């Protein structure tokens, strides 16, 4: 495997992590980067490097960002966006893996990138759900803003400094997984305690 292929895997995984926060932000970043010639896309994803694709993605991104600022609507959007986030992660990753055989390209995209996007999205969904329960939805715009900043930061870093973005994405995935596990274990203990008392 060439160093270029390794870097493209890293960029793909980092973009997938960004897709876990906001679906259309990394896709728009990828579309703009491909149009400017910064990255080379796989021939089957050449449609991403067109102006109509950028316009459509930018419109969808604006709507998505706005929708996450509506309390309680954002929780429903989380449910709906989960499979789409995984799909966006797969598309973002598969479009960059040009030097690999087709089976390996899709294996990495589906397992690695799809999994990364899914884990990040599930963790932020749980966090938003907790915020909705604790603050009656008033804390959700803060989470939405942090998600947006995280998504933009990781997507831009993935294209400009892939190694830093990958390290950031790995740290992020480990951190959110630990938080998610801690929350799950905490709930389990709570359930046991409520059964015993």
């Amino acid at each position, binding site marked *: 495997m060439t160093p270029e292929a390794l870097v493209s895997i890293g960029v793909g995984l980092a973009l997938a992590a960004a897709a876990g926060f906001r679906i259309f932000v990394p896709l728009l970043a990828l579309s703009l980067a491909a149009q400017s010639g910064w990255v080379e896309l796989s021939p089957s994803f050449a449609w991403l490097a067109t102006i*109509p694709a950028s316009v459509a993605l930018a419109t969808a991104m604006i709507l998505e960002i706005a929708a996450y600022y509506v309390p309680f609507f954002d929780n429903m959007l989380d449910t709906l966006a989960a499979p789409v986030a995984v799909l966006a992660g797969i598309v973002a990753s598969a479009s960059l893996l040009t030097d690999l055989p087709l089976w390996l390209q899709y294996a990495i995209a589906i397992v690695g990138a799809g999994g990364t996007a899914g884990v990040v999205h599930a963790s932020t969904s749980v966090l938003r759900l907790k915020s909705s329960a604790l603050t009656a939805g008033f804390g959700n715009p803060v989470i939405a803003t942090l998600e947006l900043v995280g998504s933009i930061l990781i997507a831009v870093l993935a294209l400009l400094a892939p190694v830093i973005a990958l390290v950031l994405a790995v740290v992020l995935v480990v951190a959110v997984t630990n938080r998610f596990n801690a929350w799950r274990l905490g709930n389990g203990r709570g359930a046991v305690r409520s059964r015993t008392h």
Partner: protein
Amino acid sequence: MTLAQFAVSLAVGILSVVLPLVLFFSLVALLVYVARCWLDRPGKS
């Protein structure tokens, strides 16, 4: 890029967010309707 292409791209962007939401809420409404019909069915003891 022509104005028509721009309009189509804009519509695709809007529909990609709005259409799944409409489908989701339609499905929820349908499920609620079916559940109410099931609960109010004639001959229910």
